[in-house]
């Protein structure tokens, strides 16, 4: 353990802890932009600089490990001056169109500009101008708003293991992009969108759907697979307009493309909301063997509509019907005539209950799971 003093408060922390982490344990606020607790320290934005006794120049608290007896001052007129200059420099190369930015109200840069009261800019000058171009349906990349904090690059490499994007060029022209500035072509997990502190990376489906203040957040579990990531639905006017995930949940805020962007089924008109009971045999809708062999596909007008194969039912009716049919089969052919196939999209608990039902309830060991394929 190492003893450090930050703003006259002393704390003992484990070796390797950074000054920023130690300060946060003491509830001392230090402004940050590029730091992300789940990613390796970067040290690029320079907002988190602090004074360390005996060191002639300010150090970035997010990268500096504590050392025994270290004395840290997190705020002084000099430090605040430097932070202000840094912020002004960032904003001198930023579109500053917060009123129409997707991220407004939820943007770290905007918040810092507010706290530091930056209105005029001493350093106004040339801004980077880029064309937006990605054709993908998920991620909007507005690189004019990028502050090159490197979070997206690191999450893609360290968390997702994809390395779809990186720093390119040098100096003022430095830019984050896929190789050779091609369009983004990756897993579209959106981790990069989740960690971007500005409006540089946003979800295309979220655009113009509402400000954060009008949104009701509903914590739930993603229904796509058995992993069970915790998600937060952002609901406006009873419609899900965005999905995020919280860092303090077991999945650490990371999601996959389905969890993050695949939520439109919720309000889809095709969505099944009631149980259906079959009224016509399966074959009705299928191609015949001959048709298959000859590769003939039926024109969609000839494929029978769901409503001619199924009818809607209530849950009570559907469950009673299922129970009755299972009993009949078991009575007539014995329990081993039945098999249960469970789903990777169910939770562990659901899968447990299902196998219990099949084994103890129906009396057969014929139970399997789609994820074994």
């Amino acid at each position, binding site marked *: 353990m190492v003893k450090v003093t930050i703003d006259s408060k002393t704390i003992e922390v484990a070796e390797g802890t950074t000054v920023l982490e130690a300060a946060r344990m003491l509830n001392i606020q230090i402004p940050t932009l590029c730091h992300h607790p789940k990613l390796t320290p970067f*040290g*690029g934005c*320079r907002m988190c600089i602090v004074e360390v006794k005996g060191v002639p120049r300010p150090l970035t608290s997010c990268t500096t*490990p504590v050392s025994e007896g270290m004395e840290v001052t997190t705020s002084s007129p000099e430090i605040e001056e*430097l932070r202000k200059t840094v912020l002004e420099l960032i904003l*001198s*190369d930023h579109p500053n169109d917060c009123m129409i930015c997707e991220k407004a109200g939820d943007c770290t840069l905007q918040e810092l500009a507010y706290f530091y009261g930056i209105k005029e800019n001493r*350093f106004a*000058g040339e801004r980077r101008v880029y064309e937006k171009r990605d054709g993908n349906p998920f991620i909007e990349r507005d690189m004019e708003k990028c502050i090159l904090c490197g979070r997206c690059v690191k999450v893609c490499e360290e968390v997702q293991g994809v390395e779809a994007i990186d720093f390119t060029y040098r100096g003022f022209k430095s830019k984050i992009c896929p190789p050779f500035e091609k369009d983004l072509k990756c897993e579209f997990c959106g981790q990069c969108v989740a960690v971007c502190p500005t409006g540089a990376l946003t979800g295309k489906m979220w655009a113009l759907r509402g400000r954060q203040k009008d949104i009701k957040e509903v914590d739930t579990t993603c229904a796509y697979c058995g992993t069970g990531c915790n998600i937060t639905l952002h609901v406006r006017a009873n419609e899900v307009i965005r999905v995020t995930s919280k860092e303090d949940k077991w999945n650490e805020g990371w999601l996959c493309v389905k969890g993050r962007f695949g939520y439109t089924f919720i309000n889809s008109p095709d969505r099944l909301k009631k149980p259906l009971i079959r009224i016509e045999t399966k074959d009705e809708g299928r191609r015949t063997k001959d048709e298959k062999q000859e590769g003939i596909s039926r024109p969609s007008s000839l494929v029978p509509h769901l409503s001619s194969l199924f009818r809607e039912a209530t849950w009570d009716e559907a469950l009673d019907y299922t129970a009755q049919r299972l009993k009949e089969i078991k009575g007539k052919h014995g329990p081993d005539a039945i098999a249960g196939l469970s789903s990777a999209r169910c939770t562990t608990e659901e899968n447990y209950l299902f196998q219990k039902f099949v084994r103890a309830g129906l009396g057969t060991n014929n139970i399997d799971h789609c994820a074994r394929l």
Partner: protein
Amino acid sequence: MKANNNTTIRICMGTGGIAAGGAEVLNAFKKELNLAGIKANIEKNCSMHKVGCRGLCAKDVLVDVIINDEKTTYQFIKSDMVPRIVKEHIIEKTPVIDWVVGEDYHNFHKKQFKVVLSDCGSIDPEDITAYIGVKGYEAAKKVLISLKPEEVVEIIKSSGLRGRGGAGFPTGVKWEIAMKQDSKQKYLICNADEGDPGAFMDRSVIEGNPHAVIEGMIIGAYTIGADKGYVYIRAEYPLAVERLKKALSDARENGFLGKGILGTKFNFDIKVKLGAGAFVCGEETALIASIEGQRGMPRAKPPFPVYHGLWGKPTVINNVETLANVPCIIRNGARWFASFGTEKSKGTKVFALTGKIKNSGLIEVPMGIPLREIIYDIGGGTESGKALKAVQTGGPSGGCIPADMLDTPVDFESLAKVGSIVGSGGMVVLDEDNCMVNMAQYFLQFTQMESCGKCVPCRIGTKRLLEILDRITKGKGKKGDIELLEKLSRDIKAASLCGLGQTAPNPVLSTIKYFRHEYEAHLQGKCPAAVCKELLTYYILEEFCNGCGACLRACPAGAITGEKKKPHFIDSEICIKCGACFDACKFKAVAKE
């Protein structure tokens, strides 16, 4: 090998020499010696060395002809001059006096003291036996066979050797920390990235004496306990790379590298890693990232590389010149080394003397030598004969020293005190035709382009500095711009992540410090040195103009009017300030200010 030779021809084959036609001269000698009917037995006695840089690049190609130990040095030799040298000098034994170097060649060498460069230019860098012939690898032998690492550290510490890569960190201390790290794997890296514009010290050392660097690395690696070394060298140095690779394989063949070096248990080998030519990759943490296959971006220190370096292991990074000093120190003793220089800056330093100087080239001087002696005794004063304005040292990280401070001793402390640095050793001489704002702008352009883009103050801050300088040199400066430059410079220095950003504003701050009046003149719309194009007006002095019409014909913009034999006139509204009329007038009737 000298013993049984009575005729030796040495041809300067550094990059400067080759550019000036060194290879052609060499071939011409080969051809002439054959053609001129010099018999086989004479040929046998005549060895042709390819030697590295000997400093005075302005006079390339330099050729030594040594007959029975009597050396004659020729300057500006072209291949078509070779037949006469062979005929008159080698055959008839009368040197060609017209082409022999003059007094300034000797003056150039007189005030210098060569430690690192002592064998550069006199031994064949591609021949390991030549290096061994001048006591090469004896220091490594001594260290590996008879000294403990602690003893080597003691010698290097007491010699007072400090890093020549820029920061001047005591080498012995760095080695000691690395030595004490408890780690099975350690690395030693030689930094040969040399990205400062105008610098070519390290290139010349590797081209001229690569084995000295290798020997320094062997000693360093043994001391810290590293079994792997890297030389990080820029790919734009093809000759240096080639000679280094040859030297490494020769050293390996001769048992100086590899397993069980010189019969001891010490294993060490060196890999060459080519850099793609980014200035920032000379910064040690960026260099490490680059070797690791990442983009060359620095990371915050602490932790320093001696604790947490290449692949997370303790790593010593030393500059080429630092390492080349090491064998000399071991051979001659710490006290010998410490006898040169000042109290805190020991030994010698190699500088690349360039700019408006008569004798430009590579020099090695004892630390603490007054700048004046470098400029006038070695450099021969300004090339133009015009008044010297300032000397810029330390490249884009450095500052300028104005003419009235020429008595400043050249060492780490004294240069820092006047707001400049020794840096890696660039020394650019500026005369009254140089505009200081323009010079600051030049360096800022470089650092801005080379900024890795990682941190805000450097990436955006240097861009803004450059924009302000741009508008000042275009006559669009605003009141308060000088103060804004100062404020922003100080903040960039304080808040940047690595040495590049931390030093990038130095040229701005130091030119404002000593030449504020030039900045102020620009704000008033005048460039005192008549360099900044937008601030110039060209006009014709009626009393000198005889109406020949040369300017009128030269002007691409049609800004000049006038009848034949009558004074002409430049319409400043139309003039694009290209200066064609200025160059065209034979009567000095076109003036600019």
